[in-house]
C-alpha cells in the first residue's frame, strides 16, 4: 500500500512540473493501457525464478539471454553469441556489453554465475536441471558445464521464466521480490503492482540493448504503460471498443466477427501454443477395449468444431502436439481425424449395438459415459458439441462441469473418471511425457496409461537424446505409439488473437516471437 501512495505522489509531482513547462500534453500522449489475457488475471508476482504463473509484462521488466522469433530461430538479447560442443556437454555464451539493471547494477558474467543456482529448489528447477555449473571465462563470457546434454536449453532460456533479475535487488527483497518491487534490465521499469488489478510501468530511458528483432534500438516509445487485469472477456472487449484501453492480449475467437465490424479496432493473430483434447481413461470399462477408444477418437468431428465454434480460426488437432513442433510430423496414417464410419465399425466390432434411444448397448449395458469439463464458456461450448458428436455414433455422455482446481483434485482422488475435455498450453514435445508417462498415473496421466513399451520410448526421448535432431526423432516415435493406442482424442488448436485500437496506437504488423513480447512492444508507438 505504501508503495502505491508513493508512486501516486510521484506521478502527481511529475504532472505539476510538466505543467509548468507546458509539457503536460506530450507526457499524456505517450501513455497506453494493455489488458492481459483473462487466464493471466491474478498472476501473483513478477518473480521469474520462483513464479509458476507470469503475465506478459514480465519480458518488459526483464531481459532474457536469448529470444525466439516466430520462425523458431534464436536471437541474442543479453547474450550476443553462443556455441555448444558436439557432445552437448558444454555451452559458451558471450554477453552484451554496457547493460545495467534499473537499480544501476551492471550486468556481467558474475550475474550469470549468481543467477543459474537460484533455480535450485524452486518450482522452476527443471529449467536449469541439466546445467551442472557455470564458469567465468572473462568478464563478459560464461561457460555452462552440463550434467547431461539438453537440446532444450535455448528454448528454456528464451522463456519468461529465465528472465534475469538484478542480483542485488533480488537478494535484498527476498520473498518480496516481484511482489512489492521488481528490478530487471528490460525496456520498462515497474512503478506499481496491485495484484488482480493493474501494473504500471514506466519507460527505461537508458535502454539501449534491444535485440536485432526490434527496429527501435533505444528506449521504448510508450512512456507510461499500464497493464490491466479483467477476468470477463466481454468486459475487456467493451473497454477496447469504447476507447478505455488500447490493446487486448487475447480475444476469444467468437468475438472475431463483431471485432471486424469495429472501425477503430485492428485484429491480429499469432500461432498458438495450446491444444484441446479428450483424455480417455484406459483402465475403466468400456474404455479398456481399444476398439471403444478408437470409436471415441474417430467420433470427434474436429472440422465441425473449428468451423462452427471458432469460425474457422485456428486449426484442427489430429495429433497430441501443436503443428509447429517437429515431433508433430507423424505418419499420416496414424493421425486421428473424424471418420464416422470407422467409429461405428469399431463399435459394432466391439459388440455395441444401436439401441432404440440412439445409445448403443451390449449385454444389457448402455454405452453411457461420464464427460467432465471445466468452468469457462469455451470449455462448456466445446464439451456440448462433443456430447452431441458422441451421441451421433451412439455414445451417450453426461456432462459434469468442475472448476479447474476441483477437476485436478477429482483426478487425484479417484480413478473412475472416463472422458473429459481438457486443454494444455506448452510448446515442447515433452508434454507427451507429462501426460502419458507411466510414472505419473492418476494425475497428470489421467488416461491411466501404463505401457512398458511406451515408457521405454519415453526414456529414450527424455534423456537419451544428445542433439536436437535425435530428440525430435525419439519424440516422433514415442508420439506415434501414443497415437496408435487411442489414449486420447484430439480436438482443436487455437491461435492467439490480439486486438488493438488503431486510432490510439500503432503496432507493427509483424509480431516477433511467439507472443507479444518486449521485442515487439518497444516498437509500438502512441498516435
Amino acid at each position: 500500500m505504501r508503495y502505491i501512495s508513493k508512486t501516486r505522489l510521484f506521478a502527481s509531482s511529475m504532472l505539476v512540473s510538466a505543467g509548468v513547462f507546458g509539457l503536460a500534453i506530450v507526457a499524456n500522449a505517450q501513455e497506453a493501457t494493455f489488458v492481459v489475457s483473462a487466464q493471466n488475471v491474478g498472476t501473483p508476482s513478477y518473480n521469474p525464478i520462483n513464479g509458476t504463473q507470469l503475465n506478459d509484462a514480465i519480458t518488459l521488466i526483464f531481459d532474457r539471454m536469448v529470444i525466439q522469433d516466430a520462425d523458431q530461430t534464436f536471437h541474442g538479447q543479453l547474450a550476443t553469441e553462443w556455441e555448444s560442443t558436439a557432445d552437448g556437454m558444454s555451452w559458451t555464451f558471450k554477453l552484451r556489453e554496457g547493460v545495467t539493471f534499473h537499480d544501476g547494477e551492471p550486468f556481467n558474467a558474475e550475474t550469470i554465475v549468481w543467477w543459474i543456482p537460484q533455480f535450485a529448489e524452486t518450482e522452476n528447477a527443471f529449467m536449469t536441471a541439466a546445467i551442472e555449473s557455470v564458469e567465468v571465462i572473462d568478464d563478459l563470457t560464461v561457460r555452462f558445464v552440463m550434467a547431461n546434454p539438453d537440446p532444450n536449453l535455448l528454448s528454456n532460456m528464451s522463456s519468461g521464466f529465465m528472465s534475469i533479475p538484478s542480483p542485488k535487488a533480488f537478494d535484498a527483497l527476498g520473498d518480496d521480490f516481484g511482489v512489492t518491487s521488481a528490478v530487471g534490465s528490460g525496456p520498462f521499469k515497474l512503478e506499481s503492482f496491485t495484484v488482480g488489478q493493474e501494473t504500471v510501468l514506466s519507460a527505461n530511458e537508458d535502454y539501449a540493448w534491444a535485440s536485432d528483432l526490434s527496429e527501435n534500438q533505444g528506449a521504448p516509445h510508450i512512456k507510461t504503460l499500464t497493464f490491466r487485469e479483467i477476468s470477463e472477456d466481454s468486459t475487456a472487449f467493451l473497454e477496447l471498443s469504447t476507447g478505455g484501453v488500447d490493446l487486448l492480449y487475447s480475444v476469444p475467437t467468437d468475438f472475431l466477427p463483431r471485432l471486424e465490424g469495429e472501425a477503430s479496432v485492428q485484429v491480429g493473430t499469432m500461432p498458438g501454443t495450446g491444444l484441446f483434447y479428450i483424455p480417455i481413461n484406459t483402465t475403466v470399462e468400456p474404455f479398456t477395449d481399444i476398439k471403444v477408444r478408437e470409436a471415441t477418437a474417430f467420433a470427434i468431428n474436429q472440422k465441425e468444431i473449428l468451423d462452427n465454434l471458432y469460425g474457422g480460426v485456428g486449426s484442427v488437432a489430429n495429433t497430441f502436439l501443436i503443428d509447429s513442433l517437429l515431433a508433430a510430423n507423424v505418419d499420416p496414417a496414424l493421425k486421428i481425424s473424424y471418420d464416422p464410419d470407422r467409429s461405428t465399425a469399431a463399435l459394432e466390432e466391439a459388440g455395441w449395438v444401436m439401441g432404440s434411444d440412439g445409445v448403443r448397448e451390449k449385454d444389457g449395458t448402455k454405452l453411457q459415459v461420464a464427460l467432465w469439463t471445466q468452468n469457462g464458456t469455451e470449455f462448456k461450448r466445446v464439451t456440448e458439441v462433443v456430447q452431441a458428436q458422441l451421441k451421433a455414433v451412439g455414445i451417450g455422455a453426461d456432462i459434469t462441469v468442475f472448476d479447474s482446481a476441483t477437476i485436478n483434485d477429482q483426478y487425484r482422488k479417484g480413478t473412475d473418471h472416463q472422458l473429459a475435455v481438457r486443454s494444455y498450453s506448452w510448446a515442447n514435445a515433452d508434454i507427451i511425457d507429462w501426460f502419458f508417462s507411466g510414472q505419473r498415473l492418476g494425475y497428470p496421466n489421467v488416461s491411466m496409461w501404463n505401457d512398458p513399451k511406451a515408457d521405454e520410448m519415453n526414456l529414450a526421448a527424455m534423456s537419451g537424446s544428445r542433439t536436437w535432431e535425435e530428440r525430435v526423432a525419439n519424440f516422433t516415435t514415442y508420439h506415434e505409439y501414443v497415437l496408435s493406442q487411442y489414449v486420447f482424442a484430439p480436438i482443436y488448436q487455437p491461435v492467439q488473437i490480439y486486438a488493438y485500437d488503431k486510432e490510439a496506437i500503432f503496432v507493427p504488423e509483424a509480431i516477433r516471437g511467439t507472443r507479444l513480447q518486449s521485442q515487439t512492444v518497444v516498437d509500438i508507438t502512441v498516435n
Partner: protein
Amino acid sequence: MTAFAPIRTAIWSPRGGVSAAVLVLVVACALFAPLIAPYAYDIQNLPGANTEPGAAHWMGTDEFGRDLMSRIIYGARTSLSVAVTAISISVAAGLTLGAMAGYFGGWFDRAVTAVVDLTWSFPEILIALILIAIIGPGLESTMVAISIAYLAQFTRLTRAQIMALKNETYVEATTNLGAGHFHIIFRHLLPNALTPVIVAGMLATGDAIILEATLGFFGLGAQPPTPSWGAMMSSGTAQIFIAPWIIIFPGLAIAITVISINLFGDALIEALDIRNRLRSV
C-alpha cells in the same frame, strides 16, 4: 370459509389477479414444456447459430443454433424446480429448527440463534458458492446450497412465531394437561406459525430463482445441455455483442416470474393480514 378464502381474495385483487395468471402460465410452461416448446431443447444446428429473432425462431437461436424460446420454456422447468425444491427443504428444516429453538429455549436456542444470526448476515451468494465448493457441482448440490443459504431466514421467522405463541393461554393449558413437548410443537404451535413461514417461503422462491441464475453465471448449477435460465444467461454473457437476445430473454423471463411472485405474495399478505407476523425477519 376454508383456508382458500384468503387466496381467493388475493386473486381477486388487481395485482394478485394479473400476477397469479402469469404464474399459472409459467408453471404450465414448466409442466407441459414438451407440448408447448416449438423445438427440442438440445438439438444443435451449428450453422444456424446466433440467428436473430424471427418467424422461425421467435426469440432467435443460441450459440449452438438451438431454439431459444424452447430452451426458455424448458428452462422454466429447471429454474422453478430448483427454486421450489430448495425452498421447500429450507422451509421444512427452518420450521423444525426454529420451533425447537423457540420452544425449548436455553442453550439450544442461544446456539441456534447465534449461528442463524451470523449466517443470516452473510450474503446468500457467498454461502452458496462456498457450499458448492465443498459438495461439488451439479443440480442436486445447487439445490442443497440454496436451501442452506436460506435456512437462517426461516429458522428466525419460525422461532419468532413460536416465541409469540408459546406464552398464550391455550398452550399453557395443554401443557398442564400433560401433553408431550412434540405433541405441543407439532399439534398446536407449528400449525399456527405455519402461514407466515409459508408466505415468506413463497417470496423467497423468487430470490432463489435469482440465486440459481447467479450461480449459473459462475458456471454452477444445471449441467449442459439441460437448460436453466441462469446457465443460458451465463453463456449469453460471452455472446452479448453478437447475439444479445441470448442473455436478454432469459433475464426477462426471470424478471417477469419474480415480479409476479412478489406481487402475488404481497396480495396474499394483505389478504391474510399477516404483515406484522412477518416482521421478525
